[in-house]
C-alpha cells in the first residue's frame, strides 16, 4: 500500500472517525508527554529525596547511655546474642540437646530436652551468650536452633554510683535511680540517642566511697553516706550510700542495700542541724557576740536538755556553735519562737521533700504538735528528721552567699540561668562561713582540716531513736563541711551510721572522731581534682598551719 493510497483512504473516511482518531492520538500524546515530563523531572531535579530512603532501624531500640560529667560511661547498651529454638523444626531433640550442652555446660541436658520437645514454636535456650559460644552453636548447624540479638544494659563501673545510676530489669525497664527517671520524669528531656550527662565526677565519687568504706571498717559501722555539692550551681559531684549493690547483678546483694541513704533516708541529724538554728538567729539580726544562758540544764515537762561538756556559763552565739552547746541553742530558738522557726526551716527547704531527678526522695518528719519542747529540740537537731540531701542543700545556701539552689543530678550547661532564690542575707552567709571555720580551727571538728585547703563545718552526733526512746550506743555521727572555708566552692556531708569507738579514739565514735577525719582525707584528695586553688602562706607553707593532731585534746564534741 502506497502513501498516496493511504492518504486517499484517510481523506475518503467519514469525518467523525477521523476526528476520533485524531482525538485519541492527541490524548495519548498528551498522557505520554506528561509521563515523559514527570520522569525527566524526577530524574533531573529530584535526586533521591530524604524521605524516600528512610533510615531502617537495625535491632531493638535501646536506652540512652549515662555518662558522668567528664564523659565517663556509667551505663550503656551492649548487643548480645541469645539462642532460641523452634521445637517444630528440631529434627533430633536428643542429639540437639547433647550438642547444646556441650557448648553450655551449665545447662541441664534433661531440661533442654524438655524444652526442645515442647509443643510451642519458641523457647529460649540461653540468653546473653558470648561471641565464642555464638560461633560454636552456629558451627553446630543444628536445625531449629537460631539466634536473636538483644540489648543488654551494662554498668562498666560496677558499684560506683549505683544508687544514682539505678538499674533495670530483664526487660530493660528502669527500676531505680536515673534509669527509672529516664523512663518517667526525664523521658521528655532525653532526646533519642543522646546520652544523659550526670553532674557526678566519677573520680570524686570514688574517693568519697573509698574513704567511707575505710571509715566504716575502722569503726565497725553498719553503713554510711557521703555527698559533695557544688555550692555555686547545686550540682551533686558525688553521692555515696553504703552498703551498696552491683547494678549488673542486682539480686546478688540484699534488697535493703538499694536504699539510698542520701536522698531517701531521713535522720535526726543532731548537732549538724545547729547550723540552721544559728543561721536563723543571725539572719534575724542576732549577732555572734550576743549572749545566751547555758549555765544549767533546761527542764521542761519530763524532758531535760543538757550539754555533753557543760561550760556552765553564759555563752555567745559564736561559742554556742563552736562548743556545740545544746542549752545555748535551745535558748536561741526560744528567743526566735515557734512560728519563726517553722517559717525559717520551710524557707530553707527542710520541711518539704527535696525533689531531684532521682525518683527516691524522702519526706522530712516534722513534729505534728510543734510546741515549746519541739522548738528547743529542733534547735539542736532532734525531733525533726531530714534527708542528708536536705542538710546539704540548706548548707549550700549558707555557704554561697544566701541563695537556695535546688540540687541536681544532671550536669548544668554553662550559661543557663540558675533557678535560685535568696533565703539568707549575704552578711548571714559570710558570718556562717566564719563560724564554720571557727569550729574546725578551735572547736569540735579540728580533725576535719586539711593543710592548704581550709575546711569549715560542723560536727554532729545523734543518738538514733529506737523503739520510742533514744539508743545511747547507736550513734549517727556526721560532719557537714564547706571548702575552701574563706570562699566556699563545695559543700560536703559525711555520715557514719552506728560507728563504735576504737582504741585509737579512746572509745569515741562521735562526728569529730569519725566523720571529720574522713572529710579531711576526702578533701585532701578531691580538692586538687576539682581545681580548688590551695591557700598557701607567703613562705609557701599551707595557709592553715599543719597541726599535730595527737597534741589536741578533743575537749568538746557534740
Amino acid at each position, binding site marked *: 500500500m502506497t502513501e498516496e493510497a493511504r492518504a486517499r483512504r484517510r481523506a475518503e473516511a467519514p469525518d467523525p472517525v477521523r476526528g476520533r482518531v485524531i482525538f485519541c492520538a492527541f490524548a495519548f500524546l498528551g498522557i505520554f508527554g506528561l509521563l515523559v515530563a514527570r520522569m525527566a523531572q524526577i530524574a533531573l531535579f529530584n535526586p533521591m529525596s530524604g524521605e524516600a530512603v528512610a533510615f531502617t532501624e*537495625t535491632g531493638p531500640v535501646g536506652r540512652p547511655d549515662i555518662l558522668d560529667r*567528664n*564523659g*565517663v*560511661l556509667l551505663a*550503656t*547498651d*551492649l*548487643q548480645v546474642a541469645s539462642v532460641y529454638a523452634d521445637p517444630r523444626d528440631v529434627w533430633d531433640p536428643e542429639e540437639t540437646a547433647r550438642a547444646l550442652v556441650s557448648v553450655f555446660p551449665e545447662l541441664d541436658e534433661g531440661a533442654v530436652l524438655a524444652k526442645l520437645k515442647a509443643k510451642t514454636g519458641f523457647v529460649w535456650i540461653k540468653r546473653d551468650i558470648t561471641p565464642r559460644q555464638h560461633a560454636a552453636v552456629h558451627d553446630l548447624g543444628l536445625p531449629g536452633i537460631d539466634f536473636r540479638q538483644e540489648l543488654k544494659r*551494662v554498668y*562498666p*563501673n*560496677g558499684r*560506683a554510683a549505683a544508687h544514682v545510676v539505678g538499674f533495670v530489669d530483664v526487660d530493660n525497664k528502669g527500676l531505680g535511680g536515673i534509669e527509672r527517671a529516664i523512663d518517667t520524669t526525664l523521658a521528655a528531656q532525653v532526646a533519642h540517642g543522646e546520652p544523659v550527662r550526670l553532674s557526678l565526677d*566519677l*573520680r570524686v*565519687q*570514688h*574517693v568519697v566511697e*573509698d574513704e567511707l568504706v575505710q571509715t566504716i571498717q575502722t569503726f565497725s559501722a553498719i553503713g554510711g553516706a557521703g555527698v559533695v555539692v557544688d555550692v555555686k550551681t547545686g550540682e551533686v559531684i558525688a553521692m555515696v550510700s553504703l552498703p551498696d549493690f552491683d547494678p549488673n547483678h542486682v539480686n546478688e546483694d540484699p534488697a535493703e542495700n538499694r536504699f539510698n541513704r542520701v536522698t531517701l533516708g531521713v535522720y535526726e541529724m543532731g548537732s549538724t542541724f545547729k547550723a540552721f538554728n544559728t543561721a536563723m538567729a543571725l539572719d534575724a539580726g542576732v549577732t555572734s557576740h550576743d549572749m545566751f544562758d547555758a549555765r544549767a540544764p533546761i527542764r521542761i515537762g519530763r524532758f531535760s536538755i543538757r550539754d555533753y561538756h557543760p561550760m556552765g556559763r553564759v555563752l555567745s552565739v559564736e561559742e554556742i556553735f563552736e562548743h556545740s552547746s545544746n542549752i545555748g541553742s535551745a535558748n536561741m530558738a526560744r528567743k526566735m519562737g515557734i512560728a519563726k522557726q517553722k517559717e525559717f526551716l520551710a524557707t530553707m527547704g527542710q520541711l518539704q521533700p527535696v525533689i531531684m531527678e532521682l525518683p527516691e526522695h524522702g519526706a522530712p518528719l516534722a513534729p505534728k504538735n510543734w510546741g515549746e519542747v519541739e522548738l528547743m529540740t529542733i534547735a539542736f537537731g532532734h525531733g525533726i528528721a531530714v534527708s542528708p540531701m536536705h542538710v546539704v542543700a540548706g548548707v549550700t545556701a549558707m555557704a554561697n552567699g544566701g541563695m537556695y539552689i535546688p540540687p541536681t543530678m544532671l550536669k548544668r550547661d554553662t550559661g543557663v540561668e540558675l533557678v535560685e532564690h535568696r533565703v539568707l542575707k549575704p552578711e548571714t552567709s559570710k558570718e556562717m562561713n566564719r563560724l564554720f571555720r571557727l569550729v574546725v580551727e578551735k572547736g569540735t571538728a579540728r580533725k576535719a582540716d*586539711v*593543710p*592548704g*585547703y581550709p575546711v569549715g563545718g560542723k560536727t554532729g552526733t545523734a543518738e538514733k531513736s529506737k523503739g520510742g526512746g533514744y539508743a545511747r550506743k547507736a550513734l549517727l555521727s556526721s560532719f557537714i563541711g564547706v571548702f575552701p572555708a574563706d570562699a566556699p566552692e563545695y559543700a560536703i556531708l559525711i555520715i557514719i551510721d552506728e560507728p563504735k569507738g576504737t582504741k585509737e579514739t579512746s572509745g569515741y565514735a562521735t562526728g569529730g572522731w569519725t566523720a571529720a577525719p574522713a572529710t579531711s582525707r576526702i578533701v*585532701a*584528695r578531691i*580538692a*586538687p581534682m576539682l581545681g580548688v586553688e*590551695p*591557700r*598557701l602562706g607567703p613562705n*609557701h*607553707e*599551707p595557709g592553715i598551719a599543719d597541726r599535730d593532731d595527737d597534741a589536741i585534746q578533743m575537749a568538746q564534741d557534740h
Partner: protein
Amino acid sequence: MIRALNLGMLALTVMICFGLYRVTHAAQEREGDLKHVEAEITEQQRAIDVLKAEWTHLSQPGKVQAMAARYLNLQPMKATQIAYLNDIPMRPEGSATMSDIAAIPFAQAGAAPVYDENAPVPMAKPAGIGR
C-alpha cells in the same frame, strides 16, 4: 525515508533499553555496596561500644588506685606541692646559661636522638574515651 526513520528509532530504542539496563544494574550494585558498608558500620559501632565499655571497666578509679598502690611509688598530691609561676625564683647570676646548655652534645641541633627508637611505646588509649 520513513523506513530509515523507523529503523533509526528501533536502534535508538534498543540502545536506550540497554543503557537503562546498565544504569539499573549499576545502581543495584551500588545499593548492595551501600548496604554492605552500612552493615559494616553498624558492626564496627557495636565493636566500639564493647571496647568503650571494656575500657571503662578496666580503667575504673578503684582498679587504677589498686594498681597504682601496687606498682607505683606515688602519693596523693599535697597542696604544698603546688606553686605559682611567680613563686619560681629568677635564675641566679653565674648559673648555667643557654649557651652552656647548647654545649651539651645531645642538646645540639641535628644531634642524634638520645632515646631508643625500639623501646616499647606506651599503648595509646582508644580515641573518644575519657574526654
